């Protein structure tokens, strides 16, 4: 009986899961704000297209890895709302960063300006995450 219970997936603590979500969203915010800085710098023509592309691509890779790790966690009972909100935020962040990468790689100034607005919005939501997560 003891052996069988030892093999079961631990249920986990909802408050620890929430802490993990906050920490993940903070790491995601770091990647998103990096992209915001790169877009601003590129739009002011203060960085090279290839350097901007590399910085955005690296931030996107980091963001995907951060999001993937969190999404792979088993949420404890009672933490589904936290998971739902956090994964939604992460998904929005990934979408806006992908749009920024496409715009930078195409050197499309109008799309970069649009992406900058979207990225700034997601960054602000990520910044407020510790307060708005249930």
């Amino acid at each position, binding site marked *: 009986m003891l052996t069988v219970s030892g093999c079961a997936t631990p249920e986990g603590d909802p408050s620890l899961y929430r802490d993990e979500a906050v920490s993940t969203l*903070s*790491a995601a*915010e*770091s990647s998103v*704000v*990096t992209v915001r*800085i*790169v877009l601003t*710098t590129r739009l002011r*023509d*203060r*960085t*090279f297209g*290839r*350097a901007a*592309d*590399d*910085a955005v*691509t*690296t*931030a996107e890779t*980091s963001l995907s890895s951060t999001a993937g790790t969190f999404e792979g966690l088993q949420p404890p009972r009672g933490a589904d709302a936290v998971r739902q909100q956090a994964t939604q935020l992460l998904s929005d962040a990934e979408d806006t960063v992908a749009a920024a990468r496409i715009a930078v790689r195409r050197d499309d100034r109008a799309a970069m300006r649009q992406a900058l607005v979207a990225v700034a919005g997601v960054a602000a939501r990520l*910044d407020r995450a510790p307060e708005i997560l249930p």
Partner: protein
Amino acid sequence: MKKLFAVALGILTAIGGFVDIGDLVTNALVGSRFGLSLAWVVAVGVIGIIVFAEMSGRVAAVSGRATFDLVRERLGPRIGLANLLASMGVTFLTFIAEIGGVALAIEIATSVDEVLWVPVVAAALWIVLWRVRFAVLENAFGLVGLALVVFAVALWKLDPDWMDLWAQVTSPRPGANETWTSYSYYAVALFGAAMTPYEVFFFSSGGVEEHWSEKDVGTMRLNVFLGFPLGGLLSLSIAAVTAVVFLPAGVQVESLSQVPLPVAIALGKIGLAIALLGFFAATFGAACETGLSVGYSMAQFYGWSWGKFVAPRQAARFHAVVLLATVVAVAVLLTTVDPVAVTEYSVVFSALALPLTYLPILVIANDPDYMGERVNGWFANALGSVYFVVIVVVSVAAIPLMVLTRGGQ
């Protein structure tokens, strides 16, 4: 005039050659997370490397032999082997990180994945190590590495609140969202980055390559006493620009592509181009130094003919070790391991290996049979002993802190 030129060149190459991938990544990361609250660690590390580099340079100048050439003879094969395994292991890890750093620097300029650049970089590196004269190799990359002064210029151009930066320097404690454990972990990493073992390996072996004698001790000391502190200031300027741009924005540096962004903001494309040139020179120069150091340590331990002052045919085993190290480093990097992660681990493992690297220097620099009248004085011994205690404490703390912080997270 010729002497003055040699002194100036030595100081400039010491400044430009001080920063490597470990300093670049660790200082940028620490600046973005802790501001300048860990600046004191850079100061402590720079004084430490000055103390031991001066000793190892003096040993090379007086005895005509590199410090680690004497370890096996003076301390016996067992301690010599422990020293070889620890120092060479860490130097090899640093070598991998430096090659990855060069590839990352080229990736930023080309946006072609660094993994594709690794074999190209390694081939170029091996040709340089095989064909280029020691003095050219040391001076060229050291001088071009001075391009990193662009970080100090960028800091001035960013027009930060200098009082706020000074307040960070004088508040040696973690910020609101950080813990003492992570603060201590990065203190160990910064210390390891400043006192990387290969620096003394290369410094003392380089003294033998350049045929230093007792009359060169004064020049060597000027290079160390002026070049290293100014190199340390260069490291601090990297931490300062990331503290100014990234810390208030909540951005944590985790890739090399983020490091030149503050320079681009402050100075535009020209500044960015100079920073990338500095990255390339600093990492390629350090890759040369670490690659040679792997060969030096092995050849010196086994008593083989070594160095670039002899024809490659006469130092075949030394060059074979350098080539083998390059091939294995490429194989490791082609597994797509993140060079920044390798760098972060290399500086912490450097901290772990410090006692085994620096104890032999202290012992040999105190031995009148080798040093004659140039044996350590009371001041060098007092500093050396205090630093040895610090090094042991840092070494003991390195792994527990790495585990507790999950690698600094």
